[in-house]
């Protein structure tokens, strides 16, 4: 199975980290904290799934944070000010964000421009558009919101598996299936291997590029809706910097930024590792703003170094299979 060993290693790193944290703060080892970890990182997990596709295909999408921000504002205004029923608002925003991603993908392909820059422009655009919609934060009072926010499966030990956590888990599983079991997924890897070669082998590179960025923006839209559930509000400055968090999660999860390798499950573990770091720092609670940043950096380094070390260890020199059998 492609990408499994690094994923296992990432999982080991996560469990190890969790155990270490639990030794220091026994409270961490509770379903409550685990539930929180899933809920608090739900939107990050969802965008990171989309980012995984983009990065494996050899691209990058810097616009996701802004798309989340835009989505929250749009949804809030649609429901609260324009009187659109919530479900219709969701459909509208998902169509809108998918179209936005498709447009970025098309520009990247047609004009042969670097994704980094095109999506950077997309990031400015989406954030700018949300400022235009509203610079104030808009509370959402629709009953769906309180129903969804209050919904949770109780786990033994008082933990709550919330609706948004469930949405995230479903998307992670769906993403993994899409990436690893479908033709679309294989083509994503193919693009990451080499766009030229993939094209010579008959992959419709242009269509794929459009679809991949569309998927990423669509998931960012869903993440935006989840974020609006999470905060019951729309705010133009929400989710600033999420693009970097999700890229970090994807990379920690063992996906190569150069494309062609990686997995959705790895990304999910990467998200959890980042959540762990955050939780640890919150539990510690003695860190000043600057020590928080330094500790985040150090822990990020420690996790990546540990993981790379383990991967290097695991990569035993395997004799290459010999040539033709005669």
């Amino acid at each position, binding site marked *: 199975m492609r990408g499994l060993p690094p994923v296992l290693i990432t999982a080991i790193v996560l469990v190890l980290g969790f155990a270490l944290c639990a030794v220091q703060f026994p409270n961490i080892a509770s379903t409550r904290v685990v539930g929180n970890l899933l809920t608090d990182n739900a939107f990050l997990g969802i965008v990171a799934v989309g980012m995984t596709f983009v990065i494996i295909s050899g691209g990058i999408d810097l616009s996701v944070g802004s798309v989340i921000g835009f989505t929250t504002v749009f949804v809030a205004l649609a429901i609260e000010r324009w009187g659109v029923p919530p479900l219709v608002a969701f459909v509208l925003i998902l169509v809108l964000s998918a179209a936005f991603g498709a447009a970025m993908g098309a*520009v990247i392909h*047609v*004009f*042969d*421009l*670097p994704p*980094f*820059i*095109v999506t*950077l*422009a*997309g990031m*400015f*655009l989406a*954030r*700018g*558009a949300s*400022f*235009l919609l509203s*610079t104030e934060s808009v509370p959402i009072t629709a009953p769906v919101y309180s129903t969804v926010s209050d919904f949770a499966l109780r786990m033994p030990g008082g933990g709550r598996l919330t609706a948004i956590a469930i949405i995230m888990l479903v998307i992670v599983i769906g993403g993994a299936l899409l990436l690893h079991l479908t033709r679309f997924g294989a083509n994503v890897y193919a693009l990451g291997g080499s766009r030229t070669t993939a094209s010579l082998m008959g992959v419709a590179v242009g269509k794929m590029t459009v679809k991949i960025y569309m998927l990423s923006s669509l998931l960012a839209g869903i993440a935006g809706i989840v974020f609006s559930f999470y905060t019951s509000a729309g705010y133009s400055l929400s989710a600033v910097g999420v693009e*970097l968090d999700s*890229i*970090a999660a994807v*990379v*920690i999860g063992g996906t*190569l*930024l*150069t494309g062609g390798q990686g997995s959705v499950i790895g990304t999910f573990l990467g998200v959890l590792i980042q959540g762990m770091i955050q939780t640890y720092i919150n539990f510690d609670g003695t860190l*000043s*703003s*600057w*020590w*928080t*940043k*330094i*500790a*985040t*950096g*150090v822990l*990020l*380094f420690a996790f*990546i*170094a540990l993981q*790379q070390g383990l991967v290097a260890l695991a990569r035993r020199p395997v004799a290459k299979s010999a040539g033709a059998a005669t």
Partner: protein
Amino acid sequence: MTALLPRRGLAQILALIVILAVDRVVSPQFFDLRLQDGRLFGSLIDVLNRGTPVALLSLGMVLVIATRGIDLSVGAVMAISGAIAASLADSHGLPVVLAASLGAGLVCGLWNGFLVAVLGMQPIVATLILMVAGRGIAQLITEGRIVTFASPGLVWLGNGSILGLPVPVAIALGMLILTGAVVRGSALGLLIEATGGNARASELAGVGTRAMILSVYVWCGVCAALAGVIAAADIMGADANNAGLWLELDAILAVVIGGTSLFGGRFSLVLAVLGALIIQTMNTGILLSGYPPEFNLLVKAVVVMAVLLLQSPKLSGFAGIMARLRRAKP
């Protein structure tokens, strides 16, 4: 007719001219210059002066990107060096202050280079570590305060003038010439381009690719540190919380607008600096225009896309458009 014009850089120059023209439209006094206390004064000078930090960053960034890397930590390094400069300014002489803050940039660059070249981490995550932690270090130095200083030497670096030009602009020009001389005067330029173009092949050709990668990150760190010192000198204080915030994106943008590919290889220092100027010309234009700030990002997005499309290989810039027109005729 294309033979008369430089092939590279045409799109950038064109873009700059167009944006300058737009600036002139939104602000009729854009090209006014006058002498004020022995120093030129006017919007054009503002463009140069405000563009300096990003121009300096892009000088380092362009080399990093040429090796197929990226450095997200430059904003944080600016904050660190600014913090160090500000805390030492009133108790030490200018040489010590500069040595300490540029030294800090060098150490930061070494760290990034070590992670990328020796540990083999992917540049974007390797430098993300310092991007996060570095600002923390800067805040640790200032303890979250804005550390102000009055040392005339350092203040002069930010606000003085040489031959009518603001000192930061002179410094940036000097750094451009210095970097150009080092990179193109030695074999560094060729070896960096080879490393970025095909690291495996270059390694096999005997190029010390690790040393190349290490050195570009170090230089990037030093450039960022210098930008940080200038940014601190400009406001006579180190604002560790905000100095250089998100400037890494502007620097990367400048490099790309300057025509250097994010996939490494060929690079141009002058065009990267030109890219920084294009961005600043746009920013200054936005400020002068009087539009409500809610529009800032939208305008930025549109201009960036326009500039990029102008140099898209598919349209192959201006020349491509001309060729198309010519072909369409018969």
